[in-house]
């Protein structure tokens, strides 16, 4: 006897009215879940420009460019090299300067396209004697905050603190750095040279 194929028919009817399993993706956006490690993003207010993320990055995706003349440090993150490992977020000294976002979509025809770069700019404190880099101003303030009262032992922290409240006049270091210049904003190398070489 021929039995109607009830199971098959119900299945066919059911699948006729259920939506397709396939995602609608390119037509509808898909938002990755919170834990997804997407491309990292800088947060300019929180980043102090220390350069730790540059050092820990396993793919050298972040480049550090110091402009000593203008006193600007640039951190350029290249998304095309980034492997989304999260080392930069984990090792960031402020814990908030760089964070992995949940963004993951990027497609370029040209590796020099501006959308593959993320840049953060920070003011640099440069040595008044030799013009070398000391650290970013925000970094000095961050360290000062952490040190608390002990920070007043070092003139660089003092000068940076002053700079927050008033304009600090550019000092006039002569050709040779002398012992009295130690209270100015000078780099550790110059400090050392002065202590070792300068006679009373």
């Amino acid at each position, binding site marked *: 006897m021929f039995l109607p194929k009830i199971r098959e028919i119900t299945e066919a009817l059911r699948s006729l009215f259920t939506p397709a399993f*396939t995602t609608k993706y390119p037509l509808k956006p898909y938002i990755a879940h919170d834990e997804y490690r997407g491309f990292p993003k800088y947060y300019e207010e929180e980043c102090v420009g220390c350069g730790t993320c540059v050092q820990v990055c396993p793919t050298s995706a972040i480049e550090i460019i110091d402009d000593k003349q203008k006193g600007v440090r640039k951190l350029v993150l290249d998304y095309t090299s980034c492997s989304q490992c999260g080392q930069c977020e984990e090792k960031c000294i402020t814990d908030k300067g760089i964070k992995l976002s949940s963004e*993951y979509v990027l497609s370029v*025809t040209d590796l020099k396209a501006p959308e593959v770069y993320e840049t953060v700019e920070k003011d640099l404190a440069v040595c008044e004697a030799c013009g070398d880099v000391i650290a970013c101003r925000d970094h000095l303030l961050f360290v000062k905050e952490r040190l608390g009262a002990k920070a007043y032992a070092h003139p660089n922290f003092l000068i940076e603190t002053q700079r927050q409240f008033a304009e600090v006049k550019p000092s006039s270091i002569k050709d040779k750095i002398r012992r009295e210049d130690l209270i100015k904003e000078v780099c550790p190398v110059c400090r050392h040279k002065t202590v070792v070489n300068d006679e009373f």
Partner: protein
Amino acid sequence: MFKTLLNKCFKKSIWVYHTNTGACNGCDIEVINALTPYYDAERFGIKLVGTPRHADALLVCGPVTRQVVPALKCLYDSVPDPKLIIAIGSCAIGGGIWYNTYNVIGGVDKVLPVDYFIPGCPPRPEAILYGIAVALGLVKKKVSPVILKEESPEKWMTF
């Protein structure tokens, strides 16, 4: 005229050949993932083929190791013109985490003229779909039309 016709045909369906030039398999799995029923790349006419001679596009995953260079060039030759080269993953773009290893010469663009780069380690299947959809002109953001490259052997001979 012929080029516009080809462009139109290209949009309809694109057959891809997937190749691994030294990847860790992460990107390969994501490419396979994009072809599963959930992501279903075949609804755009994207089809995985078993030989480069049937392919329109080459999906290259992984950093280019020294040993794979001749094979990759041979593969590029076997794909009929016009062809698209799509580099998938950070490794295929600039070497990724193997950027300074002794046996890796760098990204795919050192050997072949790459048309599309899809960064990520590995890129999500959505990102791969998006990249290919952009290449096909299905999605309008950041779109540039499919450029048919004139064959210039000098360009990919220098590495």
